[in-house]
């Protein structure tokens, strides 16, 4: 079941609701699927995989998909409880059964930028960054920066996003955020990239994602 609801949130006039038990392909094919989400589903997830993975379980298995949903300001429901996806992901202990996923649509002034590092052009990223930034009159009102490959677990929102709020998205601000990201991330090294490399790539990818935003970015 996937539908567009007229009740928006997080600045969105409407929202897209899809069941956690539905296939990713259903989300991908929906005409109101936000472009950043569609791009990730197309570039990072093969067609067969989109017909294998459920929208809920993919949050754990496809970090880039979780990252884009985080940047989009997604909410989820677990039974009666509706909460931000970021809270759901970061909650330790029992998380409850995920039932629905809500993505805000038509958010005025929200732009997106994405960057990643990988072995081959469509490989699972070693590190990726997804930025969702609300800019009003040249000033950042809200920002979400989701990174993969630089945490103990798959994906998280970075607190450094707060440094953007109230400032113009200029070179200095981006540099400040990138510097803060370097301190904030806590990567685990593996054969794809050491701790040192992942930390460095967190800086590069977040910088690039924000630079894309500063140049107009991708609208949803």
């Amino acid at each position, binding site marked *: 079941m996937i539908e567009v609801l007229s009740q928006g949130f997080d600045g969105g006039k409407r929202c897209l609701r899809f069941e956690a038990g539905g296939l990713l392909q259903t989300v991908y094919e929906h005409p109101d699927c936000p472009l950043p989400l569609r791009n990730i589903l197309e570039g990072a997830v*093969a067609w*067969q*995989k989109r017909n294998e993975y459920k929208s809920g379980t993919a949050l754990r298995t496809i970090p880039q998909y979780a990252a884009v949903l985080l940047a989009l300001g997604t909410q989820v429901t677990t039974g009666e409880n509706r909460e931000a996806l970021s809270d759901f992901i970061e909650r330790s202990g029992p998380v409850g059964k995920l039932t629905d996923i809500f993505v805000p649509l038509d958010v005025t002034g929200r732009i997106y930028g994405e960057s990643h590092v990988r*072995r081959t052009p469509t490989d699972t990223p070693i590190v990726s960054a997804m930025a969702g930034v609300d800019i009003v009159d040249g000033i950042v009102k809200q920002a979400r920066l989701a990174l993969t490959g630089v945490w103990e677990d798959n994906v998280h929102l970075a607190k450094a996003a707060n440094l953007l709020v109230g400032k113009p998205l200029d070179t200095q601000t981006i540099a400040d955020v990138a510097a803060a990201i370097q301190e904030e991330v806590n990567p685990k090294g593996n054969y794809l990239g050491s701790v040192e490399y992942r930390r460095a790539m967190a800086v590069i990818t977040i910088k690039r994602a924000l630079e894309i935003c500063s140049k107009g970015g991708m609208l949803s």
Partner: protein
Amino acid sequence: MSTETIQVNFILNGVQHQESIERGESLLEFLRKLGMYSVKNGCSEGDCGMCTVLVDGQPVPSCMWKAQEIEGRSVLTLEGLSKRDEMHPLQQAFIDTGAIQCGYCTPAQILTAKALLERNPNPTDEEVGEALSGVLCRCTGYVKIIDGVQRAAAWLRGESVSLEVALPQIHTPPEMSMYEDLQVVGKPVQKVDAVKLVKGYPVFTDDFVLPEMLYGAILTSPHAHALIKRIDASKARALPGVHAVLTHEDVARIKYASGGQSYPQPEPHDQVSLDNKVRHVGDRVAIVAAETPQLAEKALRLIEVEYEVLPPVLDPRDAMKDGAPVIHDEADTSGIHDAKHNTAYHIEAQVGDAEATFKTCDHVFEGEYTTPRQQHVNLEPHVTITYWDEDDRMVVRTSTQVPYHCRRIIAPLIGLPVKRIRVIKPRIGGGFGNKQEIVLEDVCAHLTIATGRPVRMEYTRRQEFTSSRTRHPQVIRYKIGVKGDQVIAMDLYVIGDTGAYATHGLTVQMVGGFKGLSLYNPPNARFISDVVYTNKPISGAFRGYGTMQETYALEVLMEEIAEKLGVDVVKFKLDNVLKVGEPMYLATELGEGRQGYEQTLGTSAIDKAVEIGLESTDYYAKREEYARQNQSSTGHIKRGIGMSIMMHGSGVAGLDMACVTFKMNDDGSFNMYTGSTDIGTGSDTILAQMAAEVLGITTEDIIVHAADTDFTPFDTGAYASCTTYITGGAVQKAAQDIRRQIQEHAAPMLSVDDPAKLILRDKKVFAPNGRSISLQEVALDSLHWHNQHQIIASASHISLVSPPPTAAQFVETKVDTETGEIFIENMLMVVDCGRVINPITAAGQVEGGMMQALGFAQCEDMYFDENGRPLNARLGPYRIYKSNETPKMEVIFVQTDEPSGPFGAKSISEIAIDGVAPALVNAVHHATGVWMRDLPLTPERVWQALKTR
């Protein structure tokens, strides 16, 4: 044993079905039980796409879907796409464009393409690549698959499509004009196995179910190095439905070496079917046969094993040190060079005096390089079915490149004489050398002997990584002495990591040494190699076979030398490369596991190949332009172009042997019996082309039978790039004998005195006066009327030379200097393989080879933790290139006329993999100034190198 069953209603290939399924059964298992054998298993983890079917028009991985999920839905498999005499446009287009090599991925590719074209009738190449990215192909490089989809799309849009398909450029020197009237050889003839593959017929080993068949499974070691102190299989044996559990206590301890090589197998024979010691994670511990695969797995879990875990040694350099853990401390293995230092072999060979000559050189350059543990990723896993036939002979139906070696090697292991063993090779879903080994055949036969029942065994994808074979990782140290601009001395030291067992360790390193010192062939050269055991998966044969590793190191160091000397690298290489007429100095010392034969380079188009490549890529202009751009730009993207040259071999001189038999049928067609094994290369097709050329017919009148040790004659098998050259030689001889017999029988029918004056053409025999009779008339007359006899001939062929194909490889790349990422833009290979027998299959070999080589160079490696446990033994984390990331690839042929080869042919399959790595490393250097010495070029490696430049 009770299993819960449920009813499902669904449409399969347009027909309503109601079936009982076992709850939890995968859709893949269910469909294959229904006889839908086009649905293939490649990984059972949703990573490879081989099992793709369409459910309500959507491509789904049937291994990950539960069968009950199709309730009320419509399922399409390839069986439903066409009728026996009709083909879907996609199927026809796949045949026309050469999109099929081994054919294992073809059903999934076609179904996914069908789903795409129903949504998007006019896709771009990028969209096709994107849509097909969930279906891996290890053979083709995807170029021809995308071409095939586009050709079908045009048909389906109603556009007129030329019957001709795009062919690679072929440059032919004037002296080859004698071949101008060839009718079949050199033509883009359709693959003889294309129809059955494109229709998904049950042609592979596993597409075969016998009554009472049991399912075998292997318990593998979780430890890299351990003694089995106690093993108790009683609980597993007590499980109802389990028919046999065998451990080292149950199987005779017969020593052998699993490498599928000619008799006598090089020592050491350091393996047994089941041992009381394990030497790598994935090593064999016990085997089980049970009524179902699930039950077999359950039985494995009930086997209690008490291990004494020993310290592993994972780096060959550590393994050679005093005091290192000794991997082969067993008393009954002979022939290990130095077991205490884990050195299976120590090889030394030399010509002249390299050490003394270095002192006379103007410059001496050294470089150390390492290469990765690349895995073959043959998409059809190893699979074997064994059973007793009606004469109590053991039939081994197996996915093997070496049926005859297999029969000879397993005979003592299973306690049967060769005459009681029959090995059948069905179609093979990719091999690349991985199936030039005895991997499952002995254990599967042990289980049939123990149970009296047919047994099927198949590796899981994880076992393909841990328990089949890999490429030998090497540490390569070159020392090159130059006087003026001439290379006059070379020293090559190679540490070959053979993993837990020696198998191909001797020969891979010997071939690497020979080719690595013969490309520039200095008169003073020394080769030393230590082939070292480690507690890692077993290294074995892999396309390239040592040559690939050494070519990488050599071609990078030669580039570095030219730069340091300030000379043009292309000129430097061509000035020093082995020339036609020159002897290869180390040929006799470095045969393949034994004394070799003298070799002189007979044909080579390397100069021409380089010339064409330089022109096609605009190499010099780009070298200047990119250098200027890289210098002036402050951006993080740099561009580079690099090249390399290479040569390979065509079979093993004086060792590889093939025999081929032809038999004429009543209608003038022919059965061709060959023990060679087409592993997707198209070798059955090019052999049929050669025969057809001699006999004046088309390949449609050649019925190829390969391979069955009961019926097809001996052939060493598909390895060492030997089939075109060696088996082709046998084909040519046998077909010529058949032609002679036809001429002799037809001469009185045509009232001609001299049979040699008769010409075979268009399935007829022509007399000088223009009269003709059909081959059918000759056949019927010879079988039923006059001088009755079967027109039949066999011929064997061996060659004391192994003429090298030669080639030039060019790669253009971008490098992100902030991240270390590499983005390949173009790859061009210009190849001299002698006569090109079939331009489509030959180009497919080169494209696929370049793609596999790109994986070796850029992303493929196996990683282990400190205890030797693999970290990326799955297709996803291991990563091979997919259809949506394929760089632009081009293939150009420069023909030579190799006098010792059939129709002037040499070989093609392995040289295609040799040159990408050095050309890419050289391109990265051109872009960034750094010399990369360790493969693969992972982003972090490049980033680290850039940081420290």
